[in-house]
């Protein structure tokens, strides 16, 4: 500190202003430096406020927008893909449904055809059976009628021969024959029916 004291003494002796600033406490601000500091700071602050920070902020905002735009685009794409997938799934389900329907329809149709055929066959068989019965009945009737005629003539013949009297009187003859035949009918009813029943049984 000796040198400083010397220097201070010398400067004090000179009485110059510089001595004060040289030896002034370092915590006393130098007015010129304070003014220069304030001016530089103010000018730099103005430059930053007017140009630098707005530019940086604009860039950051644009980046934010770009990122958000990118996210939006990606989201739209994803939504589109999802929609396409949904559509595809729906189509697939529809096709499956349709196929099932077709299968069901085919099955039903087949069933129907079988039913129809069976019904037709049954009808046919029934018809055949009916016709056979009819024929049998007709033949029987015919035989009965023929037999009735022949039996009548034969019976009258035989009776005439046996009795020896000519049954000329037609009316009486007719009455007698009819009465006889009726009796015969009553007798052979059980036999004839039994025979008629056995005929379709044999056919089957």
């Amino acid at each position, binding site marked *: *500190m000796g040198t400083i*004291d010397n220097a201070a003494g010398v400067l004090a002796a000179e009485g110059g202003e510089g001595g004060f600033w040289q*030896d002034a*406490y*370092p*915590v006393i601000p130098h007015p010129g430096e304070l003014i220069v500091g304030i001016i530089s700071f103010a000018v730099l602050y103005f430059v930053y406020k007017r140009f630098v920070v707005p530019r940086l902020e604009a860039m950051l905002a644009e980046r934010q927008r770009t990122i958000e735009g990118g996210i939006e685009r990606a989201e739209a794409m994803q939504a589109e893909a999802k929609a396409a997938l949904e559509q595809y799934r729906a189509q697939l389900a529809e096709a499956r449904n349709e196929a099932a329907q077709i299968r069901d329809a085919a099955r039903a149709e087949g069933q129907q055809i079988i039913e129809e055929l069976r019904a037709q066959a049954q009808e046919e068989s029934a018809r055949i059976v009916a016709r056979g019965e009819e024929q049998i009945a007709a033949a029987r009737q015919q035989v009965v009628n023929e037999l009735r005629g022949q039996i009548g003539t034969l019976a009258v013949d035989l009776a005439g021969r046996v009795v020896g009297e000519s049954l000329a009187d037609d009316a009486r003859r007719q009455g007698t024959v009819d009465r006889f035949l009726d009796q015969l009918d009553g007798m052979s009813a059980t036999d004839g029916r039994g025979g008629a029943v056995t005929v379709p049984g044999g056919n089957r």
Partner: protein
Amino acid sequence: MTGDLAILGYGLSAIGPGVGIGLIFAAYVSGVARQPETRNVLQTIAILGFVLCEQLAIFGIALAFVFSGN
């Protein structure tokens, strides 16, 4: 031997802030060691505490020059 009592005084006044800063960073280190995820929060607080503590040492150095007899 010549010297300045004010500078000696500054040396003494620096003990307090020295201990204080040590305590602050000790707490910071153990805090971060326990919960590393709180590091960012603790860092700001630790620096703030360090600054407020250091302030005393800075006052000391300023006043040491003020009261040094030159």
